[in-house]
């Protein structure tokens, strides 16, 4: 029997999730075609505000990439709009073709509601709904300064926070008395406003916009009370409007959305609607959790699996703005029969309010601490009488009431609201599949994969489920191939005089004789460190960046970042870089964070040619090694400079370049305590003062910001170099591969490290050992250019 043709109009989260659910149930049942009018595959719209807030990139929010569609045999037409549904012939006409169907799913979603006021069509007036809107906002922020967001609801505030992050001056216009008035009560709304004001957001409350002012581009807003403000960008975030025109033209009953029954069926037995465009029982939902619940029901129905039908959803809300944790669910207005219980802790600015009717929980508002959100939401959904519960309890000893949420949580309670995953689903996955990390739980169950707010609870469940095994289940070894720790390995390598990685794996009984992507580079590093003269480096165990001496980019191209000692360059170098960039059509030239020039988007085959033409040394911007020595101009030009910071920076960089370290290693030399080069967050940071040089160690400005600690103050440049030798070598000898100096220092203890590297005998010994390791080092680019065998690595064969 030929497969039935299933056509879906709309390529968004609700629709594609429905298709995933169908594929899970019966991948062979339908021939699937999807039409989407955006030029992207399915992406996570909830995360758009994270793009605006510089937390994610557009490619990171793609949920299903093109290969997913291809590998599931789904025909995808993007950038194509459906225009007409012909219900007599079961055909949909798009801007490019006619497509016939047996079953049709309308998943057209909704669009941003734009106020019907004069000027709403001016340039610079946007909704906040798509990747295109988001990109437009980021683009605008580069040219203009002032932004106005109309609407102080969830979406408006996330947009406003993002525009602040883009460097704009942001004002939020809100009609009601307090922010997010449908989800928050007045008190929580005020707390939120105060916190956002502290972040720099401005507010105009109880303001109704009358008109948008401007000739071709927006220049201001006029309000009904006669006042005006100037602005360069207007984002309307006052709500969404379900896309129902197609259904209306096809004479399907519509209200606010396309009317569907409990099985998401429209009035036509072959046509279904799911997601924001559908209206069930008078409600068109705009949050992801109910839409995913609908998707499951529809998938069952279309695969012929019996199902109770969709009964509507209770909703909850959280705001993705850091520093403003809030949670809201259910009915939050006090009436004659709904009574509230409020707890406000003004010491920690935590506000909790629950709303009860007939001893049942009907609403929750949490501000400042939302850890109880899920537990309360589940109580609310169950509609049980809460006679056993204490409504208010103050000053319990810590520990008495903790962890109640996970241990007492029944299996059918929902943990991940976005994806409808219960505690039972998670515990089953943990025990059946032996999962030990939050990442694994997300990979297997989807829990935590959408908004991510439930990850702490998943962690609690892991700990609770695994109990004592939680610790022992976590592998103690450096990777899955061995149970040996880093220290045990080093001791064994030295004791048994193991010379090669193969020998280490064989003698120490690694489970996988060829190792894995984790232990291979680690062993290569340890062996190089222990036997600097005799160990032959294994290029095949190096990560691609260190093997090819270039940083791999997300599209498989590479970057070229030449050495510029202490950030200095000269006209000849700049001319060479410019010529090379032009000749090889380098897509991006950019100054790096380490005061150098990077050429990005270079093809692998071009790398050696470019290095040859540049005739500069490798900046080693790709390795676990000394990266840069960021330096200021110091006493050479700066009127505050106390020492020649440039010369010291260059000396440090020349002495320590090309040495392998457990992780990347950055230095900084500031000419005075103003520390323009941020020496306080460098692995080895120098601050020059009138009487010498302050040496700071163990700083890190990355994932976890760690302030460097003052090691000592010395009088001469030579001492700075000597102490650096000892520090680098001690880190090399005792560091775990992939461990930065900050956690290393914490593990070793500052006092211990200070004692070792400032002790004259130890210092001299460490310095000698490092000199031995440095002896054989050379510029890797030059080595490639001088060795035809090495150049073969860059060849691409064409046959």
């Amino acid at each position, binding site marked *: 029997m030929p497969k039935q043709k299933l056509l879906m109009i709309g390529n968004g989260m609700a629709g594609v999730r429905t298709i995933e659910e169908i594929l899970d149930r019966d991948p062979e049942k339908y021939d699937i075609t999807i039409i989407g009018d955006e030029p992207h595959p399915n992406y996570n719209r909830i995360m758009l505000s994270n793009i605006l807030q510089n937390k994610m990139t557009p490619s990171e929010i793609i949920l299903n*990439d093109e*290969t997913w569609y291809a590998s599931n045999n789904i025909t995808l037409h993007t950038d194509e709009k459906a225009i007409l549904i012909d219900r007599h012939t079961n055909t949909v006409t798009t801007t490019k073709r006619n497509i016939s169907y047996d079953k049709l799913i309308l998943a057209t979603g909704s669009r941003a509601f734009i106020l019907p006021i004069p000027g709403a069509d001016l340039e610079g007036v946007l909704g906040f709904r798509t990747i295109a809107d988001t990109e437009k906002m980021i683009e605008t922020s580069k040219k203009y300064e002032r932004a106005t967001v109309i609407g102080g609801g969830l979406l408006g505030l996330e947009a406003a926070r993002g525009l602040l992050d883009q460097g704009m001056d942001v004002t939020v216009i809100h009609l009601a008395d307090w922010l997010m008035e449908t989800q928050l009560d007045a008190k929580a709304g005020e707390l939120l406003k105060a916190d956002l004001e502290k972040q720099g957001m401005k507010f105009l409350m109880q303001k109704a916009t009358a008109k948008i002012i401007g000739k071709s581009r927006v220049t201001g807003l006029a309000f009904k009370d006669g006042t005006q403000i100037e602005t360069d960008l207007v984002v309307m975030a006052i709500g969404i409007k379900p896309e129902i025109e197609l259904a209306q033209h096809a004479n399907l009953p519509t209200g606010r959305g396309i009317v569907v029954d409990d099985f998401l069926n429209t009035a036509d037995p072959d046509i279904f609607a799911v997601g924001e465009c559908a209206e069930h029982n008078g409600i068109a939902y705009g949050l992801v959790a109910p839409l995913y619940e609908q998707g499951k029901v529809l998938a069952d129905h279309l695969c012929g699996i019996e199902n109770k039908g969709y009964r509507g959803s209770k909703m909850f809300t959280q705001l993705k703005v850091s520093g403003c944790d809030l949670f809201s669910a259910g009915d939050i207005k006090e009436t004659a029969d709904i009574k509230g219980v409020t707890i406000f802790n003004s010491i920690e600015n935590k506000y909790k309010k629950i709303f009860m009717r007939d001893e049942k929980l009907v609403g929750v508002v949490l501000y400042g601490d939302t850890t109880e959100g899920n537990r309360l939401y589940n109580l609310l959904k169950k509609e049980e009488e809460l006679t056993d519960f204490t409504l208010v309890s103050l000053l319990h000893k810590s520990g008495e009431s903790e962890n109640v949420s996970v241990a007492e949580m029944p299996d059918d309670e929902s943990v991940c609201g976005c994806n409808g995953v219960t505690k039972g689903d998670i515990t089953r996955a943990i025990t059946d599949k032996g999962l030990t990390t939050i990442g694994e739980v997300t990979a*297997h169950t989807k829990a935590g994969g959408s908004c991510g707010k439930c990850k702490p609870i998943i962690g609690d469940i892991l700990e609770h489920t695994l109990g004592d095994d939680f610790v022992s289940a976590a592998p103690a070894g450096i990777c899955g191939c061995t149970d040996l720790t880093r220290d045990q390995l080093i001791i064994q390598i030295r004791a048994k005089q193991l010379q090669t990685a193969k020998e280490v794996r064989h003698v120490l009984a690694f489970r996988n004789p060829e190792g894995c992507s984790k232990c291979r580079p680690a062993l290569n590093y340890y062996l190089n460190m222990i036997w600097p003269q005799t160990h032959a480096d294994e290029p095949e*165990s190096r990560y*691609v960046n260190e093997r090819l001496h270039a940083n791999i980019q997300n599209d498989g191209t590479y970057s070229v970042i030449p050495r510029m000692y202490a950030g200095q360059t000269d006209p000849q170098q700049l001319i060479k870089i410019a010529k090379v960039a032009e000749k090889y059509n380098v897509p991006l030239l950019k100054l790096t964070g380490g005061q150098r020039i990077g050429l990005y988007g270079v093809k692998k085959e071009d790398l050696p040619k470019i290095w040859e033409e540049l005739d500069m040394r490798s900046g080693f911007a790709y390795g676990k090694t000394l990266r840069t020595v960021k330096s200021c101009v110091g006493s050479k030009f700066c009127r505050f400079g106390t020492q020649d910071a440039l010369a010291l920076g260059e000396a440090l960089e020349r002495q320590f370049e090309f040495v392998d370290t457990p992780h990347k290693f950055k230095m900084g030399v500031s000419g005075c305590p103003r520390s323009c080069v941020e020496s306080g967050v460098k692995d080895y940071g120098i601050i020059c003062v009138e009487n010498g040089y302050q040496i700071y160690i163990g700083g890190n400005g990355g994932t976890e910001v760690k302030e460097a600690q003052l090691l000592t103050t010395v009088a001469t440049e030579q001492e700075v170099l000597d102490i650096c030798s000892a520090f680098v070598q001690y880190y090399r000898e005792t560091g775990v591969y992939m461990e930065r100096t900050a956690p290393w220092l914490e593990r070793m203890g500052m006092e211990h490290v200070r004692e070792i590297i400032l002790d004259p005998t130890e210092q001299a010994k460490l310095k000698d050992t490092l000199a031995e390791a440095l002896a054989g080092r050379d510029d890797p680019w030059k080595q490639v250019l001088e060795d035809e065998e090495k150049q073969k*690595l860059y060849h*691409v*064969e064409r046959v």
Partner: protein
Amino acid sequence: MEKKYIADLENLTPLIGREIIMDGTTIALFRLTDDSVKAIENRCPHKNGPLAEGTVSGTNVFCPLHDYKISLETGVVAAPDEGCVKTYETVIENGKIYLVTAL
């Protein structure tokens, strides 16, 4: 069936991939420790990572972009990740590597 000459065994370094472009498709070619040769599509199903640049261990390659583990024998991505890449059959005759393609 057709045999197409693609490379010489002696030009491949064990455990370091080589990128081959054939009729517009790019293929990742690997010489394993036992001198056998494997060929797969040079494109990770996750984010199109160039598998020829990955770390090779046993009969698996780890994608250089996000560490997906992919079997060089079946092309299947190891759980919990999902996906599959195309594999190609190869033969070695007198040190020359040929790709076997269906006509």
